[in-house]
């Protein structure tokens, strides 16, 4: 076990391989669940949980899973954790569950957990798979939250449902709609490329 590599696998999800921006994966919830900070963060946490658990389990079982049926096995594992998340959010964070709605079950077909299972957990030891899942999950949560902060503050004039803008502020309701999310996403991607130089 190598601490340096652990950190490397963890941090790549936070910037250089940050899922919705670099891979442009998992866009459906990125656009739909970022109207408020609570939803964005909640969605991110749900995905992080699924990602970490499925990465660990798939990595543990990587020698048992036959190559021909690996996708089916991955899907079963991911789906199981997704339903666990669905039931627990329903039991403990009901308003969040109501807000995210269909997007929680849709994590099953989200490309990130499946993609990480196929690209990483399948070939790497548990320890690094955990780091990978955690990094990717937190990166995803950060992306969704930052997008949501922007959209909530300017599109609604609130932050975590508290009014924070001055009284005469007219919210840009366009930002609350899906096309507004696209525009925000594009701007953030551009900004990231500007800072990080982008991948040529």
């Amino acid at each position, binding site marked *: 076990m190598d601490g340096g590599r652990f950190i490397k696998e963890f941090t790549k999800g936070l910037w250089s391989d940050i899922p919705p921006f670099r891979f442009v994966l998992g866009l459906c919830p990125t656009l739909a669940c970022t109207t408020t900070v609570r939803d964005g963060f909640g969605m991110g946490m749900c995905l992080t949980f699924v990602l970490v658990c499925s990465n660990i389990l798939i990595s543990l079982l990587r020698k048992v899973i*036959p190559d*021909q049926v690996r996708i089916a096995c991955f899907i079963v594992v991911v789906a199981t954790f997704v339903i666990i998340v669905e039931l627990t959010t*329903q039991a403990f964070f009901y308003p969040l569950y109501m807000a995210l709605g269909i997007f929680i079950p849709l994590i099953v077909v989200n490309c990130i957990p499946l993609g990480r299972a196929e690209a990483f957990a399948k070939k790497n030891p548990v320890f690094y798979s955990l780091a990978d899942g955690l990094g990717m999950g937190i990166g995803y949560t950060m992306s969704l939250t930052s997008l949501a902060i922007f959209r909530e503050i300017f599109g609604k004039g609130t932050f975590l449902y508290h009014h924070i803008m001055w009284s005469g502020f007219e919210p840009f309701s366009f930002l609350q709609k899906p096309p507004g999310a696209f525009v925000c996403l594009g701007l953030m991607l551009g900004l990231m490329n500007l800072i990080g130089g982008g991948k040529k």
Partner: protein
Amino acid sequence: MREILKLIVVLTAFCTVSAFSLAFVKEATKDRIEYQKLKMLVAPAVKAVFPSYDNDPIMERIKVKLGKKEIVTVFPAKRGGKLIGIGYETMGSGHGGPVEVMLALSPEGKILGVKVVKHAETPGIGTKATDSEEFLSQFKGKGLGSKIALTAAGGEIEAVSGATESSTAITEAVSKGMELFLKVKDQIKG
């Protein structure tokens, strides 16, 4: 052959483990989910239909069995430990599907309040009836002897014009609910 057997065994094992763990989680969260659902969807209606109470009707809900299959969840409202009313949901068929109504009755069977919990009526048309305080307050004070029907059907409830179908659905729900009252009350006492 051996290869195929291996695939079958592995996939079956995956699915079995998954099924068992999900059944476990489902069972563990069942009560909590039911409580949350009631608290979010039904509690506001309970609050609206009862004048004042100091218990938690959602927590103290009673499942009353009517006949073989029908189960009604009854929410008792109490003040100082004394039962001041019972509420339960009843249903009528509206334009966009079932209209669920919370019906609150005093222990004597007088209507304390009516509130629509869930509906799929057309916004701006059917909702004129479902959201109308004026329309819903017509039910207040009606008792077991009253004929609960729209004026067009010989009753005393004025339909909201333009939203006749939704008005009918709510009236239907209330009158159906009234029919249950005696049976429900019998079981609560006992």
